[in-house]
């Protein structure tokens, strides 16, 4: 198992957001996390690479509990690619340099090496011909593909997506779904938070339903999207479908 989360909790001041989350992610697996707005999906992802400090629990990544004191947090983060809803491309850098920055700073690559690696990853995302363009010159779908290339360039053990298609119109969102599917064929391990039933159904190996800070259900796409026994889950999907 690449990632095992046990009884993870997180409170902000007096507000408890995560109340004992368990999660397993196997190598090569693509797991989707769904759940109502504000239930703590983003908080969960950010706890796993310690962008947010969890309150308690265990996050066992490659056999080691990364919440233990003495963990090299930056080294941990370098093994986890993170893709955000709002792309978060560095706006003063071209697509190419968005990808090369971490390779130069963190991997210590030469300009030439970093360039070659970046062009390879941009090519995988069908973005090679846009390498010299700046974020403001790219469409939303293109930006997100650059962001994915930027994350992939570090050869992470796993990719986290936090609602990668929510800021995109349906057409652009399809571009992103299709590159994620491509990554799945390449056996990239992924954990993806989404509200988008189309995305979830297209890619998920398994779906996890998070609600009120706990995992309320987990199963295959069919199990979760089908007539689920839990009325809250049925309601959620009935609503999501009418919204989509």
């Amino acid at each position, binding site marked *: 198992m690449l990632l095992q989360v046990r009884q993870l909790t997180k409170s902000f001041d007096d507000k408890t957001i995560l109340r004992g989350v368990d999660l397993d992610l196997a190598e090569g697996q693509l797991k989707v996390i769904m759940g109502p707005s504000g239930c703590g999906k983003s908080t969960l992802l950010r706890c796993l690479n310690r962008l947010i400090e969890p309150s308690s629990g265990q996050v066992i990544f490659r056999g080691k509990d990364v919440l233990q004191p003495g963990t090299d947090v*930056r080294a941990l983060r370098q093994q986890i690619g993170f893709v*955000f809803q709002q792309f*978060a491309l560095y*706006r*003063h850098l071209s697509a190419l340099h968005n990808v090369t920055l971490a390779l130069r*700073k963190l991997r210590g690559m030469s300009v030439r090496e970093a360039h070659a690696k970046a062009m390879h990853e941009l090519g995988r995302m069908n973005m090679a011909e846009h390498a010299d363009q*700046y974020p*403001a010159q790219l469409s939303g779908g293109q930006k997100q593909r650059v962001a994915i290339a930027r994350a992939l360039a*570090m050869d992470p053990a796993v990719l986290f997506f936090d609602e990668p298609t929510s800021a995109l119109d349906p057409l652009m969102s399809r571009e992103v779904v299709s590159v994620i599917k491509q990554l799945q064929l390449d056996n990239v391990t992924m954990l993806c938070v989404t509200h988008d039933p189309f995305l979830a159904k297209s890619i998920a190996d398994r779906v996890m339903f998070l609600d009120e800070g706990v995992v309320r259900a987990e199963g295959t796409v069919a199990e979760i999207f089908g007539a689920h026994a839990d009325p809250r889950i049925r309601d959620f999907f009935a609503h999501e479908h009418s919204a989509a």
Partner: protein
Amino acid sequence: MSFLQMFSLLASGAGYTVLVTVACIATAVVSGLLVALLGRLRIKPLNRVLAVYTYIFRGIPVLVLLFIVFFGLPGIGLSVPPLVSMMLSLGLIAGAYLAEVFRGALDAVDESEIMAAEAMGMSRSQILFAIEVPQMLRFSVPGMLNEFTTVLKYSPFAYTVGIPDIMKQALALASTTLRGLEIYLAIGLLYFAIYQLMLALMKAVERRFSVPGFKRL
């Protein structure tokens, strides 16, 4: 006095004006950056000191501070050379204003970009120098140009501490030739020309580092 002599006097004055302006701008940029970046460390007592600096230096007239430094400090045994006095007064006052410009520009850097860099595993200082500072400087261009212009326009105070700048030469010329109107009009044009030069230089620098779609503040 021949026209050529007058011209060469004013030209040497222009050299000093540029020197004073550049020295004060350099002081301002260094102190402004230092204050803005140190403020980023969020160390409470340090931030209080920085706030006091910007508060006081923005509130005090340039000429008063210049006189304190140049004529006042020797009274306690500290004699400060004229150019350094200009840097410690005009330079630091402009620095206090620039610090505010830089601070605002740092705040304008998108949080999500910083978080993305953190998520990649970059260190605080890597993020500061690879992402925050480059964006901050681009955001600051209008504010910097403003402040640099102000420095140029306050530079004639240099004559009061004996620096032979344009103003000083003009005063001397006016008193020997008694043709004040022509002379002061001429140096008005000279200052304007220096201002235009500065503008062109800044535009060139801005173009060199321009990023498509990067919004100014």
